[in-house]
């Protein structure tokens, strides 16, 4: 039993990691078939994982309702909404003109758009609170930010056509240079973590010790 909890996952990660690595360099039919099969299995596993999710969701919210914890009313709404959307989806499918489609268009769409729109408010308040030129570097960042912000919208073009050109320059040169530097570091770090996982050096993600 201990083998299946400790060694087997590491072994599986190693075998699959190496197989997929080799597969990348082999263009044959067998290799292609293996990859397609692997992809199909991923979809199947992802589908089954949804069962865990639903079980966890219901368990968590039922628990909150049972214990009458602060805000348990939201849990009641969650469970009712979950069940009715599931039923409507199964019966009518989510297509325009069906009750489920109506819910999608008139409840889901506006609620999602509202969440995204809150970003505008948060950006304004965060900018006011935290975007300060405390050091020279911060001042440079602040100026670049202001120029890009105003240069990317028509008002910048209206103030001066050079603003948008300068804002493009900032985006395409200093910004891109920094971006690429971080990206290269991240890519190398990702390869390193992949090697650590494939060779079983990093096992924390499996819930094991060091």
């Amino acid at each position, binding site marked *: 039993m201990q083998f299946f909890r400790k060694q087997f996952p590491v072994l599986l990660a190693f075998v699959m990691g190496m197989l997929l690595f080799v597969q990348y360099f082999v263009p044959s039919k067998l290799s292609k078939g293996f990859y397609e099969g692997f992809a199909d299995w991923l979809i199947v596993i*992802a589908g089954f994982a949804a069962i865990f999710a639903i079980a966890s969701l219901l368990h968590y919210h039922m628990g909150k309702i049972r214990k009458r914890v602060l805000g348990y009313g939201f849990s009641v709404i969650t469970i009712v909404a979950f069940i009715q959307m599931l039923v409507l989806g199964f019966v009518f499918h989510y297509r325009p003109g069906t009750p489920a489609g109506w819910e999608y268009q008139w409840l889901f769409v506006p609620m999602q758009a509202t969440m995204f729109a809150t970003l505008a408010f948060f950006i304004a308040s965060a900018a006011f609170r935290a975007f*300060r030129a405390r050091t020279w570097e911060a001042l440079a960042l602040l100026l670049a*930010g202001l120029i890009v912000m105003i240069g*990317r919208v028509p008002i910048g*073009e209206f103030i001066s056509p050079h603003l948008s050109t300068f804002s493009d320059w900032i985006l395409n040169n200093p910004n*891109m240079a920094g971006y690429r530097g971080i990206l290269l570091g991240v890519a190398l770090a990702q390869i390193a973590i992949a090697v650590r996982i494939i060779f079983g050096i990093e096992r924390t993600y499996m819930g094991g010790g060091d």
Partner: protein
Amino acid sequence: MEKVQKPSFIERFLQLDRRIIYTLVVLAVAIPLLFPMGLPIKVTSEVQSVYDTIESLPEGSHMLLAVDYDPASMPELYPMMKAVMRHVIEKKHKLVIPVLWPNGPNLVAQAIEELKVDYPDWTSGEDYVFLGYQVGTAIVIISMGSSFSRTFPHDFYGSTTKTMPLIKEYDKFAQTDYMVMLEAGSTGDSWIIFATEPYDVEVAAGVTAVVAPQYYPFLQAKQINGILGGLKGAAEYELLIDKPAMAVSAMDSQSIVHALIFVVIIIANIFAFVLAGQKRRQAREEA
């Protein structure tokens, strides 16, 4: 009893209740929507090149429109999607639309319904195929390389894709003449890695403003040939196809909100600078 020093005006201003800022943002959005100012919109080269590519394709070319967003990004990407679809219909290209975000398909269905009012002859299965959603993101993209009809056996409306006239002539990613991907996240990376690069298909990205910087390196590396960035990109495209709509009308609001944030940052910095000066002076005096 120790006297508590009353905070100065500047200190209180810097602690401004964020609800006041929220109110200002609401005003900055609403006022220009109610009273449009018609600020000039300049078409950028990255948008122009998308338009030019679609314009230059011969009639009946195969185009793929990947829809990877959901209602949250609708204000930015929906006008963009409609403008691109309108252009494709007018140029009589063939269109296949896969969706890789679970809450995206209904947005496409809605756009198709709206466009059918203007183009009643635009037929599913012949002129376009709306494949609907399939789970698996990168896996789906890889699978589309070998066959659309195997990856999506049924379209969004439940019809078998394999027997559709358009799918009979256009069933593999490699047969794509041009692709536009609408992205609210990083699904576009997978399209580039697993599809457009291996199969040498030219692609443009229509993206939300938040993720636009992520796509500029691809543009520089010529891995994509154009970017429609956020609401502004959508507005530019609407102007290019000469059908100003939602995005154009919302541009004034965006400009004013940017101006508001600009002003807010400057005022906050001036006040913070003055306050820091005052504190330094006070510290010197006390010393």
